[in-house]
Every structure is written in C-alpha cells, then in structure tokens.
C-alpha cells in the first residue's frame, strides 16, 4: 500500500477550517463592504461607509465598549471563582474526581434556553431566591434582579466556569508536588508558595482559560438578550437586531467584523503581554 503523503493527514482539518471559518469570514467581510439597500439583502457596488459609520462613535462604539468591559469583568470573576474549584479538582482522584468533573461540567449539560428560564424563575420577584431571603429576614422587599447586568454577569460566570476550571485543573495537575514541598522547606509560607510557585506554574492553564472565557463572553447573545432586558444594548444584540430586525446585512456584517476584530486584538495583546511568562513556565 502506498503511504499517504503527509499533507493528506492535514487535509480534513484544512477543509474544516476552510468551509466553516475562512469562507464564512470571507463572505462576512465582503458583505460588510457592500452597499445597503432596504428591501434586499444588499445593494450594488462596494463602500466603506458602514465602517465610517460604526467607527464614528456613538451608539455602536458604546455598545462595543460595554460588551468588552462586561466580558472582562466576567472573565476575571470566572478566574476568581474557578481557581479554588480547579485546585480541589486537581487534588481529587477516583470517584471523587469523577463526581467533581460532573459538577464542574453541569452548567454545560443544560440547554441555553432552559438554563436562562431557570434563572428567570429563581430570581423572579416571588421566586425561590427572594422567598428564602425574605423568610430569613435578610431583606424587607423582594430584590428586582431580573433584567439587570449583574444577573447577566452571574449567569455567564456560571456557564463559563468549566472553560476556566478545566485548563487550570490540567495545569495544576502538571505541577510536581515536590516543588511545593521544596518551597515550604525553604521557608515559604503557604501564601508565598502559592504566589511564587503555584500561581506562575498554573499560568499555562490560566492563559487559555482567560482567552476562552473572554471570547465567549464578548460574543454571548442569548443570556444578555433574555436576562439583560432592553435597557442596555450589547454588541451581539445589536448585530442580531441589525441582521434580523432591520434586515441590513452589510451593516450587521460590519458590526460583527468590528466585534470579532476587537476581541482578536484583545486576545493578541494579552498573549503578547504574557508571552515571556508563558515561555518560562511552559512544561
């Protein structure tokens, strides 16, 4: 049998990327330069007007900034919540580890609509959360949590936690336990050992976790749309409204390209900024 040329092995991946990433983006970028024309998908000819429009400030850039900021906040909150979970997961073995993995992955096992309707029920004015808080005497009046950005952040932290926990858990498992003992024996407190040894050595998990959650949070649409209400506009909501609501595909494509580019720039800047640390701690 003739050996397959090495390139053939990469072919499925190349095809997958071509069909599902490169072609759609090419189509989207092309679309973003087309002229708008009410009533049809796009008009004749090409123009950069949409970019001028979006970049000239106002509503669009505000929505972009708001989305990026919220994503940043969600990402950091996710890191804080996930690190202790990842630590316990990395120390567990056997059945306990299996159970913990299931718990960590549980937010992803519920469909996005069910999960968000669940949140609606829980935080409803006469929902279980308010009833518990009222009966405990912690509050006098029911909290109005629905349609707040706080609830959106909470719900997104909840669902993105696995994407932070799993890579950090992986990195923590890769740390030789003896280096922790070495640090302690040299006089470092638990805190100093965490700060100087464990945290840097877990960075190969922190970095992908931060990137994954940031990108996911920037692009999240369903949860902000359902739990955030109509008061504040997020970039993904704008994109969908423009595409489906006003049926302005060229402008919608422009917004999507701007949002993706902004997220990409953030990821690249972060990767470059942490490049030296990654080089040092890579296994």
């Amino acid at each position, binding site marked *: 049998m003739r050996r397959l040329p090495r390139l053939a092995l990469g072919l499925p991946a190349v095809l997958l990327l071509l069909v599902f990433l490169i072609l759609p983006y090419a189509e989207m970028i092309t679309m973003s330069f087309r002229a708008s024309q009410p009533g049809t998908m796009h008009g004749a000819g090409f123009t950069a007007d949409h970019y001028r429009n979006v970049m000239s400030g106002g509503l669009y850039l505000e929505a972009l900034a708001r989305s990026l900021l919220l994503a940043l906040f969600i990402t950091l909150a996710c890191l804080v919540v996930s690190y202790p979970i990842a630590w316990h997961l990395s120390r567990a073995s056997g059945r306990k580890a299996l159970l913990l993995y299931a718990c960590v992955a549980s937010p992803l096992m519920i469909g996005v609509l069910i999960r968000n309707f669940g949140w609606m029920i829980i935080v409803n004015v006469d929902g279980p959360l308010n009833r518990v808080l009222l009966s405990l005497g912690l509050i006098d009046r029911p909290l109005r949590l629905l349609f707040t950005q706080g609830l959106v952040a909470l719900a997104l932290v909840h669902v993105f936690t696995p994407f932070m926990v799993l890579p950090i858990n992986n990195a923590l498992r890769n740390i030789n336990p003896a*280096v922790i003992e070495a640090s*302690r024996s*040299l006089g470092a407190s638990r805190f100093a050992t965490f700060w*100087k040894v464990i945290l840097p050595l877990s960075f190969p998990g922190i970095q992908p976790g931060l990137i994954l959650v940031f990108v996911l949070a920037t692009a999240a649409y369903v949860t902000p749309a359902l739990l955030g209400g109509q008061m504040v506009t997020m970039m993904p909501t704008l994109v969908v409204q423009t595409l489906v609501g006003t049926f302005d595909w060229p402008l919608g494509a422009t917004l999507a390209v701007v949002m993706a580019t902004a997220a990409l720039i953030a990821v690249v800047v972060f990767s470059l900024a942490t490049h030296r640390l990654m080089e040092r701690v890579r296994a």
Partner: protein
Amino acid sequence: MSSLEISALCKRYGPAVALDGVSLTAGQGELVSLLGPSGCGKTTALRCIAGFIDPDDGDIRANGVSILATPSSKRDFGVVFQNYALFPHLNVAENVGYGLLFRKGSKAERERRVREVLEQVQLVGLEHRLPRELSGGQQQRVALARALVIQPRLLLLDEPLANLDARLRDDVRWLIRDVQQASRTTAFYVTHDQAEAMAISDKIAVMKNGKVAQFASPREIYQRPAERYVASFTGEANFLVAEVERALGNGLFRVRAGGATLDVRGAGPFAGSAVLLARPESLAIVSDGTGQLEGRVVKSVFLGAVQHCEVVLRDGASVRLGTPPDRPLPADGTVSIRLDVDRAWLMPDAVP
C-alpha cells in the same frame, strides 16, 4: 547545625506499615544514611523529618526540642529531592536564592550569598539558565546549592544521585560530602545503594520493612552485621550454616561449618545453630592444601582484574570468592580454601 534524635517513629497508611518504631540519632555534623530497598520506609522517615508528613507516633527532636509541631517552613532544614524539584520557571540564581527571600538580609547580601554557594558547587556562569537548560548533574548541583544557601540546621537528601549516570554520580557524591563537611551540617541521606552509603556516611541505618535492622558505622555494618539481611544488603556475602560447639570467651566461638571446625568471632550468645558470614575477600584458594575448607570449583568467570569462582564445599554449601586472574585452577577443580577467621563473622540464624 544541630543534632537530631528520632525515637520510636511510626507511620501507617491504612493496613500498610511504613515506619514501625524507627529510632535514630545524628550527632552534630554527622552524615547518617538510611539504606534499604524500595518500600523499606527510608523515604517516609526522611519526609517525616522534613515535615512533609506527620508520623502517627514517636518523636523527632532537634537539639533536644521536639519539632513535630513545627511546620516544614519553620524547621530550617534543607531538602534535596530525588528528581531535584527545581522551580522550573526560575533561573539558577533565582532557584538558589529562593530560600533567602524568606530570611533577613538585603538584596546585595542575598546576591553575595548565592554567588558564594554557586562557587561552592561549581556552577558560576550558569546563573541565568533555566533548569530545563541544564544537564542532570548541573540540576543536582543547583538543588544542592538551593538547600545549602539557607545554612540549614539539617540537610536532607533523598536519593540525590539516583538519576545521574555512573561517572557523574561519583563527582556529585564527593561534592556532597565535601560541602557537608565544610559547612559541618548534620545530614540524612536516603539511598538504596550500599556502596554510596559506605563511601559517604558516618553512620548507616539499614532499614527493613519499616524497622531499623542495624544502626552503626559503615565498618561495623559491613564487618559485623547484626543479621543476614544486613550482611547481604551491604555487599557480596557467603553464608555457611554453622553449628556452635561452645563459646571460647572474648567473643570467640568454636563452630562447625563447611565441613571444618573454626574459631570465629560473633556477637553471641548463640544456641545451637548460627550463620557464619564469610565475605568473598575473606576466602582465598591456597595451592599448598593448608586451607581449612575443601571444595570443588563449579564455575569461574574472568572479569579482568579478578576471577570469580563458585565453589561447592564438602558439606554441599556453595561460596563465591575471587582469585587472582592468572592463577590456573586445578584440572579436577578440587581446591583448598583458607578462611581468614578474623574477617568471618558469626550471626544468629533468625532474628526475632
């Protein structure tokens, strides 16, 4: 610098007993080896001393004060790990200087101290390398320097040479001994290699199933082992079944062994049968027939500097010994063997 005293240390993992009443002492500046096969408890003992695990029972005292309640970060013990356990994200100077960050002293003093220790272990010029850019021998030197830089009260070494090739092993072993002696640091050294333990130690604790089988100087362990296990673990050993006829006093006993009557030393009292230890170097083939033992050579192997023979004695016991490589063996294989009785040793045949 301090003395260390371990008394009746016990550690169980479920039904498995890792340490079963281990008692040891190390005087100031002494190097004590814990020698034994894997699973004998030597590493567990070291980890108890370091404070990485808590013993179930017993006590560990440094300069007479119990340290069991002291966390490992406050014990001031330098530990050299088997796989070095260097901080992979810190360079050589940062690794070595790590322990100084938690001690008094200015940055300039820390740097001076790091330089000093790096000179001691011959690593000057490699300050900015990461551990992964070093050879195994260099990594081991960094590990040693990192433990020494804090001027520890005690140096704990866990199989420090296990991952080095034979030539490097000698170099690093002498380096360890030299710096330990120069700094007069009390040290515990875990190893399964008897030659290593002999060469480096002031005292050796031979361990067996969580117990100390014998705790004595290397000479004593080798020449006057307490039991068969110790004798066979510390070097080539021939064991002859010996019938003890009577004690002659002064530690001498008259025994029948290998088809001969011999007067040998031992740490009695013995009742009936015992085991006579005859190391290969205490046996020699003599051509004039004046040896106490007689036997037949059943196998001989030429090894260059020496020729190894296996000889079956008259009573059926077989012994191994070395002969000069050029000496022809008799054609029929029958030989007379002289046992240097001063170097033979009588041991009880069973240990309670």
